[in-house]
């Protein structure tokens, strides 16, 4: 199980407080679909995903991105028990959504890159390391109930 030091928690919470969830969520999901086009397989009902600009401007992508990132906020609040916090979502992603857990890793890394573009110099190697730990922990938690 992943364990966060007090310093790592502080780093994560401090940055999270400055994130615009709606904007960053849309950005994250959009970039996932642009950079790794095969991930579009889960979003047949989303309409126009034919180009980078279509994807980034797509209202369904933005809305769903916001949903995903809002849920990620639960991770920040429950860093000591990610598996517990994401148990239900894990079941959902396995039984109903049928999402390969590899995709959680892809999305996590896209999120890290977005944080880098938003925070620039502030996103130091130390800050990145704490966030890599978190996105990795969330990916593991979301895969935990797979069967």
């Amino acid at each position, binding site marked *: 199980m992943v364990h966060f030091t007090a310093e790592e928690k502080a780093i994560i919470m401090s940055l999270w407080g400055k994130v615009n969830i709606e904007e960053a969520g849309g*950005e994250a999901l*959009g*970039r996932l679909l*642009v*950079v790794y086009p095969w991930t579009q397989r889960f979003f047949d009902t989303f309409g126009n995903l034919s180009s*980078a600009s279509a*994807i*980034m401007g797509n209202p369904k992508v933005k809305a769903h991105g916001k949903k995903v990132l809002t849920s990620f906020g639960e991770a920040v609040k429950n860093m000591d028990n990610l598996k517990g916090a994401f148990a239900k979502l894990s079941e959902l992603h396995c039984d109903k959504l049928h999402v390969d857990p590899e995709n959680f890793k892809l999305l996590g*890394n896209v999120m*890290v*890159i*977005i944080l*880098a*573009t*938003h*925070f*620039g*110099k502030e*996103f130091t*190697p*130390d800050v*990145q*390391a704490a966030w*890599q730990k978190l996105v990795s922990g969330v990916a593991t938690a979301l895969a935990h109930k797979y069967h």
Partner: protein
Amino acid sequence: MSLTKTERAIIVSMWGKISTQADTIGTETLERLFLSYPQTKTYFPHFDLHAGSAQLRAHGSKVVAALGDAVKNIDNITGALAKLSELHAYILRVDPVNFKLLSHCLLVTVAARFPADFTAEAHAAWDKFMSVVSSVLTEKYR
């Protein structure tokens, strides 16, 4: 998997900016790699890996210079990196999983320094480019 004309144009154009900070970008990429993925340090037992170490700086420069070669010969990355491909296959034998980790850290470094340029489209082009470079470097592994 090969780069489209548009993707090559994006890479080449951004490299102009990146190369002006080549050395620091190389160093920062490695710092990020060793902090986020401590297991990668196992390939450098002979290095002083503290921030600011001369070895870290030299090695970072080396890595970025090699990427520069790939960019300058973007139509023939296989040819440009042939010697490095052999080096990684027969001497260094870095496990292939680590190329993804280094690539990610380079992208984070570039994204942090050039946020306006690192659009979704540029992100995709760079991710693909690093994937091609990684393939070339692991081509002769077995």
